[in-house]
């Protein structure tokens, strides 16, 4: 009887030690996994933002920096545009999976394109946002006359 009791006590003590040590180390690897998850998420957001920004930048150049032509191109590409009060601002909305948002509830990311001119150059300040947080910013400049002899 004494032998059994002593074995149970030893087992219990070992289990207490194991659980305590596991709890202690669990905090370390849970923190590591959590930080890796947030880093991976930031990395994914940045990559997708750059792809979205590149896509919009190339459409801006294809449209010769013209806002109306750019809107037409964006609609042709079935991208969703949010309503804006300013004619010089184009807002493209994306879902969590970086696809065109079909409704306002689906919107997770937005691309804000502010069109303006700098002398003869047509410019756009492009910002990809996650809510209020800016993820990626590009400044685009385009000179619409390409040796066509037209007036800038």
């Amino acid at each position, binding site marked *: 009887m004494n032998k059994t009791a002593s*074995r149970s006590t*030893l*087992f219990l003590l*070992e*289990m207490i*030690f*194991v659980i305590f*040590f*596991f709890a202690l*180390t669990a905090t*370390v*690897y849970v923190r*590591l*996994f959590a*930080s*890796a*998850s947030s*880093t*991976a998420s*930031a*990395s*994914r957001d*940045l*990559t997708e*933002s*750059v792809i979205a*920004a*590149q896509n919009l*930048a190339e459409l801006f150049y294809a449209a010769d920096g013209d806002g109306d032509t750019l809107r037409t191109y964006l609609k042709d590409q079935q991208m969703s545009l949010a309503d804006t009060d300013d004619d010089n601002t184009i807002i493209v909305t994306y879902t969590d999976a970086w696809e065109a948002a079909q409704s306002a509830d689906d919107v997770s990311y937005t691309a804000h394109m502010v069109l303006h001119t700098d*002398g*003869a*150059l047509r410019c756009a300040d492009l910002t990809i946002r996650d809510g209020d947080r800016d993820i*990626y910013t*590009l*400044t*685009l*400049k*385009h*000179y619409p*006359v*390409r*040796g*066509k*002899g037209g007036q*800038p």
Partner: protein
Amino acid sequence: MKKRLSYRLHAGTASILLVFLTLCLISFAVLTRVNANADLRLSTKYADRTKSYYDAVGEAERFIAETDAVLLTLHEESANEEEYFEKVRAHFGDLTMRASYEIGAFQSLNVTLRADYDTRFLVDDYQVVTDESAFSYDEEPLNLPR
């Protein structure tokens, strides 16, 4: 007589399992973290490269705009092609105007414009050029099966 089988956890088994489990989890957590950091570094590099490219494009567009503004004046002051070319040569030193904008350590955006009487100028060259001298290639051919 049937012998009764008993499964008893021996002293120390739980500790060994704990050590093994801890090592496994720590290894996976560290690998995940390292991989995520490497991904973020690559994404940042890609983002920086893209930004550099569009900055270079912006500078190139400004160069074209500024050159065209000068060419427009020269064109308006010229009565014929010869006079226009002469004025362009006097102003730029040549009929072609070149500019190069760095994108990164090994790449640049090269722009070459050529004076043209009908259209004021033509874009001869607008391309990203990689500096091959910065790279070295292994001279040994790959030993592939035929």
